[in-house]
């Protein structure tokens, strides 16, 4: 039995004429302790997929089983890191995390909560900014807080919805390593959604492309058999890494071409103009 299993999941938005089927027939199995990445174009229904697994929305048809039982609503067992951080702007870094910790471990003493919160703030290297408000932080620091908030809840399944999508390449690389190092402490099951193939290959055990929506389905999966801990710089010179990455990109390009081929492209006749000489 798979740890989490999606069976023929469909989800559409709107009604009647405006109805668009975002996801159709999604089948996915993730084993315990696995790190799976789903890569896809923007607008291909990635966020819908992760919101379904988190329990924020319900599928129209199909089943989502978590540890063999169909999921109902959200749960502390399934933590989610949002794409847009979703930090509460009126609370400090510390209080944002503390609120999450208190909601999960409601029988802890103040000291236990305090120690736990501080240890996670330290893990994401934000001790110096613990009492700052989110607006005083940079994008990367905000995402660190969001990561710490979710991981401090000790979820059994970590869902990441393009967590690093809005960050610059350098911050992105650093945070990928940070998330991996925290994750490797207890190797919980993780599902990462991303539009960056390199990120998926670097972080995950398995990369699954999402064929773009409407009616998005999952493509063939790619096993990543690179040993952990992975090193970003060394990886760039590794042949198998390059090969896998290129395969995935090629696949995505191909389905991207299919998508554009499906659309009608209007060609405009341009007037035949030439510069004129004045002398």
């Amino acid at each position, binding site marked *: 039995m798979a740890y989490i299993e999606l069976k023929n999941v469909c989800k559409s938005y709107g009604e009647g004429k405006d109805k668009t089927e975002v996801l159709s027939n999604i089948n996915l199995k993730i084993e315990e302790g696995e790190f799976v990445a789903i890569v896809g174009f923007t607008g291909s229904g990635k966020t819908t997929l992760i919101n379904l697994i988190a329990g*924020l929305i319900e599928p129209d048809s199909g089943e989502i089983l978590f540890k063999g039982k169909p999921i109902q*609503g*959200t749960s502390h067992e399934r933590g989610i890191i949002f794409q847009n951080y*979703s930090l*509460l702007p*009126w609370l400090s870094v510390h209080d944002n995390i503390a609120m*999450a910790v208190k909601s*999960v471990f409601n029988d802890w003493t103040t000291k236990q909560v305090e120690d736990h919160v501080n240890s996670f703030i330290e893990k994401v290297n934000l001790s110096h900014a613990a009492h700052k408000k989110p*607006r005083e932080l940079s994008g990367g620091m905000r995402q660190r807080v969001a990561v710490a908030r979710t991981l401090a809840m000790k979820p059994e399944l970590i869902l990441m919805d393009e967590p690093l999508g809005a960050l610059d390449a350098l911050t992105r690389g650093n945070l990928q390593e940070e998330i991996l190092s925290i994750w490797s402490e207890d190797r919980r099951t993780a599902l990462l959604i991303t539009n960056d193939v390199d990120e998926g290959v670097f972080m995950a055990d398995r990369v699954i492309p999402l064929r773009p929506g409407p009616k998005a389905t999952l493509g063939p999966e790619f096993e990543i058999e690179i040993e952990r801990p992975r090193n970003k710089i060394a990886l760039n010179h590794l042949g198998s890494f390059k090969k896998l990455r290129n395969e995935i990109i090629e696949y995505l390009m191909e389905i991207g071409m299919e998508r554009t081929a499906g659309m009608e492209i209007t060609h405009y006749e341009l007037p035949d103009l030439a510069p004129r000489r004045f002398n």
Partner: protein
Amino acid sequence: MKTKIIKTVQFIGLGYLEPLIRLLVGEDLKKNGKKAFKRILFPILSVVLFIFLWQSFSNYLSNVESEIKIEKALKDQGSEAAKKLEACIASGDISCRPNSLPSPAMVYTAVGKLWDDHKIMTTKKQDFIDKYETINAARKTKGQIEIVYTGRPSFVDQIMTSLKTVFAGFLLSIIIAVPTGVLLGLSTTLRTSFNWIVQIFKPVSPVVWLLLVSMIVKTLLTNVDVEKSFVISFISVGLCSMWATLVNTSVGVYSVDKDYINVAKVLQLGPFSKVFKIILPSSFPMIFTGLRITLSVAWMVLIAIELLAQSPGLGSFVWEEFQNGSSDSNSKIIVAMFVIGIIGFMLDRIMMIFQKLLTFTE
């Protein structure tokens, strides 16, 4: 120290003083001098221009009025009376001064007069209290009613009464509008059911509110010993001004960012902590904007309500001066106008500071 002062003035909305402060500590004389010159001198110039326009307009009006008066005298009483009147007006005698828009100088004199009046009345009142202190103490032990001062309130006393009324009304509107707004924002059923009440009563004029409230208060408080006019006016002020807060609160609660609601869902907060930890804090900026509008509306309608309810305060001061019609009544009304405006401005600034202190910025 310097940055602290600058931050404080910026916080209370006096940011234009920044260059002056920088200038005073001797920082970059040329640049800050220029800035201070622009940001402080030009507003002063605009005040001067305003006073100049006011002066010319009031001159014009009094000329028009004297001409009408002289012409009327000529028609009704003959040329001799007209000449006499003309001489009288030229001499600036109070008895025949045109009673039109007062000039800035007259208003300035009225300010001094009102202040002297206030000092005289305060000493009178103090004298009265001192005089009757022992008598009242004796009456109290005998179980008799104390003798209270019933003299005319001064202008400053009227301001204080008005402030008291407006705060009572404001408090009432917070107590009614914020919880109601939260409930309406949370429940679509409630919002759609009660929307008609909000839409219909929101545009009702303060005068009508006053009449409605006095109908009710008159009946309910027949045998209760309270200042009925005060109760009527503060309740009317509250009911009149609470709508902005009610609407803003319900919209703020209703339109909480979906991300925050998702956070509440993921953290599995109960309904109570969802409201108090997520929904209320995130709608605080909207609620405070509503409260600011409410306070300024309350202050604005207060004057009209006091005027009609015969309750003491600036409104009745203005009305009494208008009825009084003495030579400096018009000037006193203008003084009251400026005082009302300045206090309204200060109340708004105070609310703005509270808003900045208590709400977040993204």
